[in-house]
Every structure is written in C-alpha cells, then in structure tokens.
C-alpha cells in the first residue's frame, strides 16, 4: 500500500491513456450492439414488479392498525419505493433505456417517487455530477455543498455539526437532494435567471405537494375510511368507530413515514458509498483541464467505488454497487454492469490502475469515519489500495451474478 495520493493517471504514458480510451469505448459499443429483448424484458419486469409490490404494500396498510399488517405493509412499501428510486427512477432518467424507443420508459418522460423534479435532478446529477465527477469545486455532489468529505476542502466551524446533520440527511435524503438540485451556489453567483429559479421552485413545490398528499393524506385517509366502513356493519357511526378510524389514519401515516425513511437511509448509504470511501480519488480543476477521453475514463474509474453483494443486493441498490461501471458508462442499462465488471477489472490489471471495491459495511464504515473525522480541522487523504492485482488474493472476488457471454474472455 502506498500513502501518496498521486493521480493514477500520472503513471501512464499518453499512448496508454489513449489506448485506455479506445478500450473503454470499444467495450461500450460491444454492449450497445448486443442490447435486445433480454434487457427490455428485464426493465419491464422490474417496473411491473414495483407496481405490484407498491399496490400490495398499500393494500396491506389499509389494515395498518393491526400490528402484523403494519409490519408487512411497511416492509413491502419500503421495498417498492427502494426499487422505484434506485433500479427504475435513477436509471431510466439516466437514459439507460432510451435505446428502446419506448415513449414512456424514457429519460425525457419519466418522473419518480421523490421530492426532486425530474428536470432539476437530471441537471444536477446527470450533467453536473457525472460530467465533473470528483473535481473539487465543480462536482457539487462532493459533500453536497454542506459537508466536508475531502481533506482538501477548507474547514469551517459549521462542519463540526456535520455528523449530526448527516443523520438528519439520511432520514430526509429525498428532500435534501431536492434542495441540493436547486444549486444555491449557482443562485448566489447569479448563474441562474430569476425565471429559472422561480420555475424550479414551483416545480419543487408541485412535487412536494403531490408527495405529501399521497403518502401523508390520501392513503391514511383511505385506511381510516376502510376501517370505519368495515366496522360500520355492527351498528351506527359512534365514537368508537371514529376512534378506530383515527387510529388507522395514524398507523398508515406512520407506515408511510417509515417507508420513506427506510428508502431514504438506503439511498443515502448506497450513494455515499459510491464516492466517499477511502479508496476514491478527488481531482483539482487544473489536473482535469483539457482532459482526453482516456483520462476522463480513468478519472471516472478511480473516483468511484463499488460495493460487493449478491444479485438481490445489486437490484435493490439500482446496480450502484457497480458504481465504477456506472460512472464509466452512465447510460448503459444497469443489468449490464455486473456483466462487464470482469472486463473492467481486466483492463485495470493490465494498466496498473486501481479498481475500488469492498463489502458494504466496510465501505459504509469508512464513509462514516470520514464524516466524523473531517468535521474537525485537518485530516489527510487516506491511503489508497494501489493498482488492481487480479482477482486472486483480492477481496474483489465477489462472484458476479449473471455471467454473460461478455464475461467469457476474463
């Protein structure tokens, strides 16, 4: 292990960087050449699964005043919301499924179950974050403008509170992301016109209203009505029935709050593990000016970190456990990330590049440690794992699910 934090690009000759660009381009084209029914059936299947799970969760919660139904309904709804945000919303809005020419499963038409409007999120995430990944001062997802996540960020006393507000952000992640999409820095700097800010605020207010009405008014109210109607058979409307209606409203409301928090904590964890574990590199703006295609691939490669896990883990994390592959090819259908991972590792090994990965709790633990440590002044970049040395002896040997024809050469 080495402690210097030299950009891995430094060790490569210009010819090598160019060759890396060509190899990654080729891998991209190979996969896009192959896309077909299998991929389309997958995303349609996941969308149908989400709708069935969502509906099932909601129906179970109509009886939420009974403990087991509350538990089953909340768990089902949480899972549905996680699928919807991660494997469906995030990936569809990245344009991963635009090649299907489907007017609905399409980045320009999709909207998700989240406080962010599709338009604002696509700008801050697809454009700003994926273009300027891990460039200090340009990638606004590096600490989300409220946290010190890299020792090279200047310390400020407000960061002393970051371990605390990180907990709040975990629970309210979708609202944090929506606010972040507004890009207060850009507004302060006058980069956004007044009409644009107004339009974004209006869009956000609309989404917020829809989200709140759905989860915290409509469904709880329906549970209350169902409960009252169910007991109505036994006589006239009286105080008892009203009380049980009220109880049902409250228990469904809490179920919905819980499901949203579960989804938020999960999304926060997956996303923070994507860029903030110790292995990842950040870059200065000078380093990345005039960046070639190959150099961009290298930055995306070492700026992200994977999370190891089984097939179910990858589905409910929207395949962002393959954050490295996702950052190389943000518009590639997520199902293909696991399949190309061995090819990506093989390229890393040949060029002596790192391939950042680790088990979930280790990656997550590193992120939490960084958040606590960098709340205080100082701090040094963490040691990096160095070049990827092949699958043997490395902890990166999680079996890749779905070994596909593409993996044959590895």
């Amino acid at each position, binding site marked *: 292990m080495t402690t210097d934090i030299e950009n891995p690009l430094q060790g490569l000759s210009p010819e090598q960087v160019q060759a890396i660009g060509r190899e990654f381009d080729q891998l991209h084209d190979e996969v896009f050449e192959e*896309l*077909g*029914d*299998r*991929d*389309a*059936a997958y995303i349609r299947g996941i969308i*149908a699964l989400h*709708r*069935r799970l969502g*509906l099932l969760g*909601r129906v179970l919660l109509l009886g939420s005043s009974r403990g087991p139904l509350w538990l089953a309904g909340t768990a089902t709804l949480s899972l549905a919301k996680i699928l919807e945000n991660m494997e469906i919303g995030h990936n569809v809005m990245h344009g991963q499924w635009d*090649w*299907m*020419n*489907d*007017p*609905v499963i*399409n980045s*320009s*038409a999709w*909207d*998700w*179950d989240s406080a962010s409007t599709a*338009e604002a999120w*696509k*700008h801050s995430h697809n454009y700003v974050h994926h273009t300027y990944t891990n460039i200090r001062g340009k990638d606004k997802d590096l600490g989300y403008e409220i946290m010190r996540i890299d020792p090279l960020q200047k310390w400020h006393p407000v960061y002393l509170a970051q371990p605390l507000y990180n907990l709040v952000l975990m629970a309210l992640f979708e609202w944090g992301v929506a606010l972040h999409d507004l890009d207060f820095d850009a507004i302060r700097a006058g980069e956004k*016109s007044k*009409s*644009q800010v107004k*339009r974004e605020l209006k869009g956000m207010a609309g*989404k917020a209203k*829809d*989200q709140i*009405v*759905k989860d915290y*008014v*409509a*469904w709880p109210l*329906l549970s209350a009505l169902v409960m009252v109607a169910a007991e109505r058979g036994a006589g006239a409307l009286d105080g008892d029935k009203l009380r049980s209606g009220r109880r049902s409203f409250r228990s469904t409301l809490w179920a919905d709050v819980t499901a949203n928090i579960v989804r938020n904590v999960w999304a926060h964890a997956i996303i923070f593990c994507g860029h903030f574990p110790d292995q990842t590199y950040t870059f200065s703006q000078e380093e990345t000016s005039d960046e070639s295609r190959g150099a961009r691939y290298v930055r995306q490669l070492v700026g992200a970190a994977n999370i190891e896990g089984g097939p179910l883990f990858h589905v409910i994390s929207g395949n962002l456990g393959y954050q490295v592959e996702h950052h190389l090819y943000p518009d590639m259908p997520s199902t293909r990330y696991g399949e190309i991972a061995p090819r990506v590792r093989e390229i890393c090994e040949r060029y002596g590049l790192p391939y950042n990965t680790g088990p979930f709790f280790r990656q997550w633990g590193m992120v939490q440690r960084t958040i606590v440590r960098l709340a205080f002044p100082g701090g040094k970049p963490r040691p990096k794992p160095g070049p990827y040395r092949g699958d043997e002896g490395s902890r990166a040997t999680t079996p890749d699910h779905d070994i596909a024809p593409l993996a044959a050469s590895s």
Partner: protein
Amino acid sequence: MLRAVSAFTSPLLPDDYLELINPLWSTRELRGRIESIERETPDAATVVIRPGYEWRGHQPGQYLRVGVDIDGRRHWRAYSLTSDPGRPDGCITITVKNVDDGKVSPHLVRRGRPGSIVSLGGVEGTFLLPDPLPDKLLFISAGSGVTPIMSMLRSLAHRDALTDVVHLHSARTADEVIFGSELHELRERHPGFRLHEQLTGEMGRLVPTDLDELCPDWRDREAFLSGPGELLDAMTEHWDREGDPGRLHMERFQPIIGGDVEEGEGGTIRFLASDSEGQSDGGTPILVAGENAGVDLPYGCREGICHTCVGELCSGQVRDLRTGKVYGQDGEMVRTCVSAPEGPVEIKL
C-alpha cells in the same frame, strides 16, 4: 375523479396500475392487441387488431402507424387500414406484405402471434372517398397498393354503394392477388362492381392507353389510384394530358419521411419552458436543434409518429420535413422531430 385517484398514484397514473391487468387500458399511449393473423397470399398477411378504448376510428383510405417491439426496440411503420370502419367486432385490420430484408414486415407476417401488443400511432391520410359519394368510381391499384382501396370497397359494400364501380388491379400472378377471393365475391354479389385483374406475369403491365378499352368512360369517373411510383407517374401524366386531373386522387404508397423535400430557410428556435435557444439550418428538426443546444426535450420515435415530442407553437411557422409543407398557427401542437423552423419560432418546451 381521475384527479382524485391520481393523488394516490402520483407520479404514476392510475392506468399504470390498470395496465397490469390489461395493457389496452392505458391512456399514456394507444395500444392494440393482435387478435389473429390471416394469410392472404404466400407473402402477405392481414393482421386483425383490437384497439384500446381511446381509438377514435378511421376513414376508408387512411393509414395507421404501428409500433412493434423487435429485439427490445420499438420500430414504427405506416400501413393502410384495410378494414371497413363499420366492422361490427370493433377490430381494425392492416395487411402487410413481407419484405424479406425488412425489419417489421417479417415480424408481423412470419413471426406475429395472436395476443401480442402493438402500439398505435395516429391515423393519417387524405386519400379519402368524397362526401357525398360520386356516381361513378374508378379504382386502379397494383400489388399491395390495393390495401387502402380494399377499405374503401368494403365500406362501399357495407353501405350498399357498389353501384357503378370499376376496379383495375394488377398483380404478377393470380396467387399474388391480395384479397383475391374477397374481390371475386364482391363481384358476384354486386352487379355494379366490375373487376379487371391484370396479371402482369402473362399480360404485361397496365398502361394508360389500356384505359380506353378497359374502362371507356374513365374520364367521367372519380378515379383513385394506389401503387408503385411508376404507375402513379404514368397515370398522372395521362390524366394531365387527356382527362381532368382534378378527378384523380392518389396514394403515394408508404409516406416518405425525409424524402426529396427541398430545404426550408431554417431559423432560431426559442424554447420557452427551458428558456434557451437553438438554431436550425432548415433541414435540422427542432428536436435535434434543441438537443444540440443542450436542451432536454421529450422524444420518442423521432419519425413523426408517436407524438411524444410535441410542443405548442407560440409564434412563427414550421416546415414539415416529410412533405415540405409550411404551416403553423399560434397554439398549434407541432412534432419537433419532423419539423424545422421556417423563420424564427417560439415553442413551449
């Protein structure tokens, strides 16, 4: 009511859940279910489609855009509707001739299965029977050009209006006459319907000078022509010279997208919703000009079919890149993927 239900499903629509039960119950896009596929000739088949409840009907002679998913991708093609709009079971039909190296036609003719779902685009076309019906009609068709005419004939038969109709149809052999037996049946049942089949394999092609013999009063008839380009060109010339060109109606088979239309003047496009601007040279569609300028615009088929890309025109005029037609009034919805600005335009997107 629908709004109230939407409060429970936002950002999805109630029908996103209903379509789990029946894919035709979608308001996001019009769909149809293939009920059966009936072979007409060795390489043509009629596809019977039950359209979703939002289907608004068609007029005989019009065509329909059909979207089919092949290898995960949606492909769109235009096919003449061959059914009588008054068909009692509410189904519609298209009749597809297999093109061996084609993408969509082999899928429908050779591999299509009852029960599969297709997307339906808008009904279009101005190749229509006049209202009121003229006393004397002449239909000239060749090959699969018979398809829009079949819808007209079926509709006329249904209305008992096959009173003085001549139909000259060309095909290479008797086996290749699409709707052959149905045409013969029409002839049996309607004395006012006269059919001439030109089997070009033995008899050679139908040429304009044959008309005087096959249908001596052709000049007095409202004529409808559908078939390959050479036939249309030859007949147009003939009517121009010897008849009344105003009485000749025709269907250039398979509307051409991005054909030889001369380019327009282009202009600046102002995208009002995103407060940005794009530039088109007259051949570049508004959609592409916007994307080039970094505007995030909705799109679907990119061929003027699915209407995903429509935006409200707020000022200026656009040119339809398929036909060259310049049009546009304020408030009109235009398809950005097949329209270029003709001078400066503003669009609410």
